[in-house]
């Protein structure tokens, strides 16, 4: 019934068109209009992605909702879209997050409102494009184009060191992606003139070539994830970005890196992936353990959550490179769950920052006396961030640890330390911010959250709990795709 509608094209172009419309409202005089158009556009864009879920065929690993059109015939580049069990949840997650971001920026952004809202809407469309593109060049175009609005968002509305953070973020990510471009061009000639990602899956490649391609892809995605030791752009970008920017960065763009591993590294270079497993697992575990320790000593809340994100993403890469289906599905669940939790944490910090204009933990204390409802929400999200059973944070981590134990006890041992460290840094932060005596007179004047803030925090709280208690609706769409991917990776592609 919906097969006739180009849902994926709508998911890409609707927010972009809405963004252009918002830009057209122009100056600050029409800021309210810009906000409403942005809200309407983002809700509409989310609404068009919703039918993807009920109409998704969970019994096949093939691409669904496929759209195909020749785009640049000279180079055999096609406008080819489609989703499978790996990419579909991210389209939904991304479109949902955009609505939150628009609402979160409603009152806070008073400077160039229309540009702010437009940047997020356009970025949302481009990110959907990244997830649904089945043509390597189309993927690349979205992958790079996405950087432009994010660069502007960090640079224009960010904190004091925003310029440094924006440039660092941009150049880091560009470094990786340019090598990927060369890899694509190489694959184009190897495959006899095709940019179809699927064509690359069946392409026999020798091990040295696979390793070089793996490294090219790895660099571009590892920077995005970000993996230790190329993670250093993230704390800067996160801290300086406005709340909405942090949310999109953490909830969505980090996932693009892990998605890239599943879409490119594993199926195109399976032998190299096996060859490099030890290395990837090692740096993933370093991220899990070492970055957790780094998070422990942060005095800035946003930085703390940024480091916690890196550590959580370590779980994701660990899960992917264990090559079994619990690990892979655990990684996917962890990505989606982290999308909710990190969004919630950054939005909560945003709630506090809007009132106090500081992110230093030391400036807070005793918040529970003034903001009890907020304290309850933050409690839930902190617990989820620490991986408490019953929240979505637990499911993914537990599955990855389970998968790790099958492979090597010590992997699992190192990974499991996160349950301690994660609890330590999150709950310690929570204790210092929420409990204790009110020492700062500013805190004494605080008011609890308003209905707008209650709305988005409650939505995220429900999702976090729902996924923690009953993750089946999410996992059922990925089963077949993940099995298919693992079967593919198990086969050698050496000629």
């Amino acid at each position, binding site marked *: 019934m919906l097969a006739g509608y180009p849902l994926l094209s709508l998911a890409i172009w609707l927010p972009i068109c809405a963004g252009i419309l918002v830009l057209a409202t*122009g100056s600050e005089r029409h800021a309210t209009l810009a906000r409403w158009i942005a809200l309407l556009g983002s809700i509409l864009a989310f609404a068009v992605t919703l039918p993807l879920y009920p109409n998704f065929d969970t019994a096949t690993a093939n691409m669904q909702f496929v759209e195909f059109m020749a*785009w*640049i*015939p*000279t*180079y055999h580049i096609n406008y080819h879209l489609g989703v499978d069990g790996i990419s579909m949840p991210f389209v939904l997650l991304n479109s949902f997050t955009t609505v939150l971001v628009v609402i979160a920026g409603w009152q806070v952004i008073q400077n*160039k409102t229309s*540009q702010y809202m437009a940047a997020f809407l356009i970025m949302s469309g481009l990110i959907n494009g990244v997830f649904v593109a089945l043509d390597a*060049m189309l993927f*690349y*175009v979205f992958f*790079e*184009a996405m*950087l*432009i609005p994010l*660069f*502007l968002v960090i*640079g*224009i509305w960010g904190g004091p060191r*925003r*310029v440094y953070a*924006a*440039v660092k973020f*941009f*150049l880091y990510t*560009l*470094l990786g992606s*340019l*090598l990927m*471009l*060369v890899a694509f*061009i*190489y694959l*184009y*000639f190897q495959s006899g003139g095709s940019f179809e990602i699927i064509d690359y899956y069946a392409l026999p490649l020798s091990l040295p070539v696979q390793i070089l391609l793996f490294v090219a892809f790895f660099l571009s995605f590892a920077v995005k994830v970000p993996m230790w030791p190329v993670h250093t752009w993230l704390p800067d970008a996160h801290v300086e970005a406005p709340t909405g920017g942090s949310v999109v960065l953490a909830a969505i763009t980090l996932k693009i890196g892990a998605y890239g591993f599943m879409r490119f590294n594993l199926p195109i270079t399976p032998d190299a992936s096996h060859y490099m497993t030890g290395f990837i697992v090692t740096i993933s575990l370093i991220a899990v353990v070492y970055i957790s320790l780094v998070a422990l000593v942060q005095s800035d809340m946003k930085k703390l959550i940024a480091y916690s994100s890196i550590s959580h993403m370590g779980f994701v890469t660990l899960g992917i490179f264990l090559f079994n289906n619990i690990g892979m599905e655990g990684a996917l669940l962890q990505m989606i769950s982290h999308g909710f939790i990190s969004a919630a944490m950054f939005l909560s910090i945003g709630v506090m920052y809007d009132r106090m204009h500081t992110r230093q933990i030391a400036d807070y204390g005793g918040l529970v006396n003034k903001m009890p409802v907020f304290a309850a929400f933050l409690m839930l999200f902190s617990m989820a961030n620490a991986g408490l059973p019953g929240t979505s944070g637990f499911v993914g981590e537990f599955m990855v640890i389970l998968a790790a134990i099958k492979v090597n006890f010590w992997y699992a041992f190192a990974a499991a330390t996160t349950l301690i460290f994660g609890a330590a840094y999150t709950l310690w932060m929570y204790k210092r911010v929420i409990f204790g005596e009110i020492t700062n007179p500013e805190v004494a004047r605080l008011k609890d959250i308003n209905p707008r803030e209650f709305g988005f925090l409650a939505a995220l709280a429900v999702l976090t709990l729902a996924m923690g208690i009953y993750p089946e609706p999410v996992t059922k769409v990925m089963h077949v795709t993940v099995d298919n991917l693992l079967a593919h990776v198990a086969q050698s592609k050496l000629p």
Partner: protein
Amino acid sequence: MNFALSDLMPLLPEVFLLAAVCGILILDLFLGQDQRYITYILTLATLAGCGWLTFSTATGETVYTMHGMFVDDLLSDSLKLILYFTVAISLVYSREYIRVRGMFQGEFFTLTLFATLGMMVMISANHFLTLYIGLELLSLSLYALVALQRDSAIASEAAMKYFVLGALASGMLLYGMSMVYGTTDSLEIPRIALVLQADIGNRMVLIFGLVFIVAGIAFKLGVAPFHMWLPDVYHGAPTAVTIFIGTATKIAAFAFTIRILAQGLQVLSPDWQQMLAIMAVLSMAVGNIAAIAQTNFKRMLAYSTISHMGFLLLGLLAADTAGYSASMFYVLAYVLTGLGSFGMIMLLSRQGFEADRLEDLKGLNQRNPWYAFMLLLLMFSLAGLPPTIGFYAKLAVLQAVVHAGYTWLAVVAVIFSLIGAFYYLRVVRLMYFEKPADMHPLSPPADMQVLISANGLAVLGLGILPQPLMALCAYAMERSL
């Protein structure tokens, strides 16, 4: 010698331009300063007339005329049409700029037209001597144009440097041509190709000549290590002339390179490929690294040109039709972006104020978000980021170079383009992240507003749908080589 009138048909645009420019030259003597706009309109009309003549006499076939001195093929027709467009757009951008600087004179327009004629001759040359005549007509007009502001010391210095180095390069080129003539006994380009195909002859002398020719070409393109003149000339010349040197002449230089290397000396491609590879790497290195240190926007764009010409060589050194059409696409993408960038400098300039420092771009987003957005698109196109035309230009040449087996060169190229991204980002940073220092309202003339918006949107539009232009480049190259 007997001429048939039909021999002149392919030459019609050149003949018309020459006649028109002589007419304008005389008419201009009788015009007062307040009637000077007539010269301006006649210049644009002449270009439009040339466009019409080129378009209507285009057959798509390759026609040789004047005893093999001159060729009219699809490549020359398409490049000439783009050339008229480029010159016309740069004149519209320049009008206000030269008016407030007292350069709104007949000389400016007639010299521009003479330079255009020179470029047309270069594009259509089928003979080394025709090439050389076209090149000299272009160069001499340019020397004069650069020095047009007599009172400006910096412009005179630039003109002097340009002249001395340009004459040296022309000399090298002639010397190289004479050596090729010595071994092949011909100056006619297709015949040289035939002779070389049959028998290479004295290879030693030939390669010697080739080195000189390549050096001459490199100078005209502005490729390292023959790039020294470029930053000074770009900086010193009035921006109205810089835009001309920075865009239109690149089209002619490209045609010139194709005529000599691809049509004449294709057999020697293993030899010149190596030279181009070295120069390409050097240009990308010098251009991108030196640009970081610039504080002057025009100088930065000059170094950016050097690096872009390095990229252009990547396409050429693939030495096949796909590579040539990739570099043709690259040139056109560069010309389109260059027009907008220099146009933007003139848009921001006003009487007694030259907006050519990077600082002058500060806070442009607050002064005028639309122009800031246009310049953002132009800068991302120069940096080669999708979804702008610059990305596809980069993709096309990288593809050509990987196809030719130089994957390492592609890796080097992307690393330098990463370095390049840094200084293009700096422009964006200044426009968007800084507060404006100068709050003068921007009020460019309406035609310029429309054109510069169209220019910026074309960079984006051709980035989203690059197929027509790519197909044109591929088709023109296939039919003409």
